[in-house]
């Protein structure tokens, strides 16, 4: 048997999903955006929803997500992605609509849009990448920056007396009646990647089933702006980020329908 005999479509055990384009990603080596993009793309292909999925890119490192995902996409103003997703889903209810947002986008400038899209129970999916720092603008303090963590705008470490506390926004969102699924995942190890992919699939299915808003938070790192190697970043993330942002499901309950509620 030669090598050429083996290279046949029926023997293929793994390939790049067609929902990822061939564009070269701009992400830093070690960054988890690439893995998360790939997982979302794979799930879209496996669920057969490429033609009816509309994605929203944020302002932040993943602003160019639309160059890598081969689906129709819109680029939102900073923080406004959940408002965009709301309108698309309301105007075209047969579509599967998701946002892809970072911590600054979702938990600082876009807090109102995030909370109110969730409160309306929009049947959308919110993918939330939390690395505790602003990556694209060069490593400034994020709402999720840990206590004492050094960034370009808190170079002596985040002093909670001055800058407040790391915002556990997913814990806040799980309390809102319109959300149906809030989970915190990571993609730094194979087992985590497998779990994260299941969470992505569940979130899309919830949207199709009209169960409410699903939030998949990915606790991530930013080795460039954390000024560490990727390996060091992963270890630091496990020790410090996971302590503040523990992995696992925070909520898995469909939103109540109006006819199930004892209303006025």
């Amino acid at each position, binding site marked *: 048997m030669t090598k050429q005999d083996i290279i046949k479509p029926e023997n293929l055990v793994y390939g790049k999903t067609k929902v990822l384009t061939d564009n070269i990603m701009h992400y830093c080596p070690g960054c988890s955006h690439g893995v998360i993009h790939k997982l979302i793309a794979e799930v879209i292909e496996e669920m057969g929803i*490429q*033609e*009816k*999925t*509309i994605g*929203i*890119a944020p302002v932040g490192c993943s*602003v160019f997500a*639309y*160059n890598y*995902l*081969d*689906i*129709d*996409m*819109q*680029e*939102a*103003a900073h923080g*406004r992605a959940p*408002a*965009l*997703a*709301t*309108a*698309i889903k*309301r*105007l*075209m209810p047969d*579509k599967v609509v998701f946002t892809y947002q970072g911590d600054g986008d979702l938990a600082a400038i876009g807090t*109102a*849009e995030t*909370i*109110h899209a969730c409160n309306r129970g929009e049947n959308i999916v919110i993918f939330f990448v939390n690395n505790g720092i602003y990556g694209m603008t060069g490593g400034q303090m994020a709402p999720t920056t840990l206590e004492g963590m050094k960034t370009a705008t808190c170079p002596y470490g985040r002093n909670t007396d001055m800058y407040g506390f790391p915002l556990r926004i997913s814990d806040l969102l799980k309390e809102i009646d319109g959300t149906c699924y809030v989970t915190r995942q990571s993609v730094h190890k194979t087992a985590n990647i497998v779990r994260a992919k299941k969470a992505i699939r569940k979130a899309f299915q919830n949207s199709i089933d009209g169960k409410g808003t699903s939030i998949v938070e990915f606790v991530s790192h930013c080795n460039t702006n954390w000024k560490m190697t990727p390996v060091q970043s992963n270890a630091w993330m496990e020790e410090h980020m996971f302590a503040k942002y523990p992995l696992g499901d925070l909520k898995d309950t469909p939103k109540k329908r109006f006819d199930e509620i004892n209303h006025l």
Partner: protein
Amino acid sequence: MEEIKLMKGNEAFAHAAVRSGCDGYFGYPITPQSEVMETLQELKPWEETGMVVLQAESEVSAINMVYAGAACGKKVMTSSSSPGVSLKQEGISYIAAAELPCLILNVMRGGPGLGTIQPSQADYFQSVKGGGHGDYHMIVLAPSTVQEMADFVDLGYELAFKYRNPVLMLSDGVIGQMMEKVVLPPYKPRRTMEEVIAQCPWATTGKVGRPHNIITSLALESEVMEATNNRLQAKYREIEENEVRFEEYMLDDAEYVFVAFGSSARICKQAVEYARAEGIKVGVLRPITLFPFPTKKIQELATRVKGFMSIEMSAGQMVEDVRLAVNGTKPVGFYGRQGGIIPSAEEALEALKTQIIK
């Protein structure tokens, strides 16, 4: 037989929206335009036409919903009043940059700041010169009657889709709140998804049998961004060439011209009546489009009249465009009231006499 109704400008706008085949309204309450969303909610168009009506958490969110809906090729709109429209400026800049068709209504009230809930025209600069960041223009329509509050919905959508550009209806608290007779336009069906895709092949309607569509206003390379700007500017020149609209009132024999839009134009028509009773030959030029501005018409009038008088409910904003058009060849005066006070016809005529006729 045509159906004549008596209603407020805000209500007429809402009825016309449903009848125009609008797909979605996204708004936030603010005086003096809250009747728009109230009327829409009462009409329940989602049951009849499938139109979406949604009260957003803020003006910011509402305009971004409009961005997304327009990016799907849908006929979408929002309405607000001055402080709320200020909040929408970020979104409007993005909409203009991404070249998305939509309709925005501003029922102006007095500012700056929280200001007053009484009528004003002090958002002329913001509307016509581009209130958000970057070089862009909206097409700006200025209704002066309740009938035009209804009629400009269809016209607005026609222009918005023709040029892939946001259209602003610049109304004010007088037009929004007053009741007048109106003939509502006939019902148009909402476009089917197939019709939307055919009309807007660029829209994010789902990647079916074509490369993926992307709606964005981002271009990090300067050359690409300059090319985008050049394309936008070429479009604005085309709009200036083709879409100027105005009303002439007793201009044929006029020696003096009131230039006024919206409510102020109505006052000026009354002032013309008083002036002509005294033997002063005055007419009114009422710009219907504020962008594009009737510059050529004013230039033509400047060759045969003795002077112009801009009457506005502001500290003098449109008068700058009148002066640019006249370019020093004839005197241009200004009279305005602010803070929600409406100038009277007597005041307008007195200002013409003291500033221009002398």
